[in-house]
């Protein structure tokens, strides 16, 4: 145990003290912070308000959308066909279309735009529609209760019976009026972000493990070390050490990015943002006090679209999301890092790694390529199988989780990933053990198979 700790310590310290690590640690947050801060900055600076045309065939939402500094709503009375064909000429930012429904209340809407519509706008619309429908339902229920004169219903039951979720599709409208789907929903963003983060982490630090192994092999120190420790200990020590470097960098990024964003926005913006923030807090407070919630819809109507984002964020199951993220992040890394270590052990130089990298990179790249498909159909069979298969599950499952995945599936995926981790590590250990003692030998897959079968 002491030896593996020594190895982890060395791997960690030599990397953390490298100049490239320090540079990356500083540059990363600056880059990320600027992607967050600059749009906010531009948004607060530009006086341009976005116009949103509303074509409401139901008539329920007339004048319900309130104008803000950012968005101005105006209402159309034409039919959807001409509204769409006139859209590009109108100069509107987006067209909100709420189709007519026969019996039920409308819970679906479509946003057409030629640009991507910000989450702020979709969330705000979703929020207003939801509240409006809930209010209508509430009124209907109250009337029912009054005429029936039954036992009084508890507030909780009442709230549950009116709970509504609105579905908004965002369609991209071309110059010619053609449509294609685009996704701006928060859970998609969240899922993609988590998935891509895992993808990058595995690639970046997995290949660091591989390079570390190759370095030990080419500098010929590996045999000196494995006369003191077991090769498997050396491999695991390296994987864990590099993983800790990755975690350190990741945490530093999060903390530094957060610090920079807060610092910059605090100095940059006036009371505007602060007002929004306090409003959000108010909304949240009201949201969790059932007694007040009867008034909540009316309060929300006056709120800034930002409130919608907060609500969307609240709709994601964060404990599950964060827990799963940490699990898939770490175990996914461990599994892939073992494979990277095996490649490093099998080859003599980085130039020889190509042929063995392929089977590792394919599932990783495939899971990112499939992401587009998976966010479109997060519960379909393809999404299911990709999120169960250990080599693709770390990325794909994270994309699916914000959309809500049954616990059983998450647990199944986790168990399989753990088994995958144990299996690949065992396999990698065998290849690594034989590989690190081979010099100047061109290795083929056939050769690797032989090594795996050695006692």
């Amino acid at each position, binding site marked *: 145990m002491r*030896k593996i700790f*020594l*190895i982890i310590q*060395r791997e960690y310290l*030599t990397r953390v003290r490298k100049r490239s690590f320090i540079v990356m640690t500083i540059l990363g947050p600056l880059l990320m912070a600027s992607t967050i801060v600059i749009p906010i900055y531009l948004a607060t600076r530009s006086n341009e308000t976005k116009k949103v045309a509303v074509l409401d065939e139901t008539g329920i939402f007339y004048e319900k959308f309130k104008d803000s500094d950012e968005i101005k709503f105006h209402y159309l009375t034409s039919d959807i066909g001409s509204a769409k064909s006139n859209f590009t000429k109108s100069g509107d930012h987006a067209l909100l279309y709420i189709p007519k429904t026969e019996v039920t209340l409308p819970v679906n809407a479509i946003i057409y735009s030629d640009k991507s519509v910000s989450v702020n706008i979709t969330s705000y619309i979703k929020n207003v529609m939801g509240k409006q429908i809930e209010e209508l339902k509430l009124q209907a229920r109250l009337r029912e209760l009054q005429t029936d004169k039954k036992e009084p219903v508890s507030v909780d039951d009442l709230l549950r019976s009116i709970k509504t979720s609105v579905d908004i599709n965002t369609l991209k409208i071309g110059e010619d009026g053609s449509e294609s789907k685009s996704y701006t929903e928060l859970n998609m963003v969240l899922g993609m972000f988590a998935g891509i983060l895992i993808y990058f982490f595995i690639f970046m630090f997995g290949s660091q493990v591989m390079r570390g192994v190759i*370095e*030990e092999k080419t*500098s*010929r*120190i590996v*045999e*000196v*070390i*494995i*006369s*003191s*420790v077991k*090769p498997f200990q050396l491999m695991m020590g390296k994987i864990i050490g590099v993983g800790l470097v990755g975690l350190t960098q990741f945490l530093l990024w999060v903390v530094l990015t957060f610090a920079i964003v807060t610092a910059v926005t605090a100095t940059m913006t006036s009371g505007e943002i602060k007002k929004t923030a306090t409003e959000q807090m108010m909304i949240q407070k009201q949201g969790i006090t059932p007694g007040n919630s009867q008034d909540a819809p009316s309060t929300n109507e006056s709120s800034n679209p930002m409130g919608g984002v907060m609500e969307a964020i609240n709709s994601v199951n964060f404990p599950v999301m964060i827990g799963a993220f940490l699990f898939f992040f770490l175990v996914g890394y461990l599994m892939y890092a073992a494979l990277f270590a095996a490649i490093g052990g099998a080859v003599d130089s980085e130039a020889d790694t190509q042929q063995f990298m392929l089977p590792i990179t394919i599932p990783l790249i495939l899971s990112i390529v499939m992401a587009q498909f998976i966010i479109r159909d997060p519960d379909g069979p393809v999404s299911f199988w990709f999120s169960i298969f250990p080599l693709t599950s770390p990325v794909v499952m994270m994309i699916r989780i914000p959309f809500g995945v049954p616990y059983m599936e998450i647990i199944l995926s986790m168990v399989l990933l753990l088994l995958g981790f144990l299996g690949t590590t065992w396999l990698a250990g065998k290849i690594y053990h034989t590989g690190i*003692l081979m*010099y100047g030998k061109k290795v083929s897959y056939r050769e690797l198979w*032989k090594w795996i*079968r*050695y*006692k």
Partner: protein
Amino acid sequence: MDLFSAQLISKQYANHKALDKVSIGVPEASIFGLLGPNGAGKTTLIRIINQIIAPDEGELIYNGRKLQPNDISSIGYLPEERGLYKKMTVGEQAMYLAQLKGLSKQEAHKRLRFWFEKYEINTWWNRKVEELSKGMQQKVQFLVTIIHDPKLLIFDEPFSGFDPINANMLKEEILGLKDKGVTIIFSTHNMGSVEELCDDIALIDRSKVILNGAMRQIKKTYKTNTFEISFNSWEGPLQGILPETFQIFDESRDADHRHAHVKLPADATPNDLIRSLLPSVMIYSINELIPSMNDIFIEAVTQKNQQTVIPN
């Protein structure tokens, strides 16, 4: 008493037998030479002794009992393929390797400072390994191999990469260690150094031990009762004055003397040779030709090969 012995060790790789029932015994406080042509299985045996790989069959006895995993802390190993982390400083690296061998941090630091002082390389402590010359790196490498006071030292081709001065220093160091009671196994192609250093040897060829024992004894068995003589005052054929059973070869002459090698029959002694020569020639020198390890090596390996060819 043997400090270490390997008994009937076999190791099979997919379609190649690296070691076939190999047995060696290494007496305590001696230098044991492990010889053999390339690919004979020396490195495999050494890796098995270091417990880097496990044998398929056979037993390893160390200190009178079975070799155990934590025995590596009393074994020092200098592999043929050796090196150091290029980007690490010498001091940090030495500390790391010493601690991996089981020394505590304080102890490792104390001993390293002592050795650095002794070799007068204190100034290297904070330098990166890549800034050192090859010879300097080898010195550091040797130092970390012996830093934990091993009872058994294993050197695989220790002299490769050393210039003659450093090689000589290493030789002195190895002999010094032996005097201190350390047992040393060393594997090499360099027969000159075997001759100078080894007490016992084992010659491995094609995964089998073909020659094993004390070097003195082996040399004795390989002697052919051949003598080199230098003489003059006789211009006629040498065979004319020597008995017919004496074989003469490698005759030569220089400005002053004639030289020849004479192989005596098994029952003849050098005295018989001198007796036959005395009446006719002026003898300047007579020496027994003792086979060098190089000759023995070549003879043993080629003979073995011939033997293995015959049954086919």
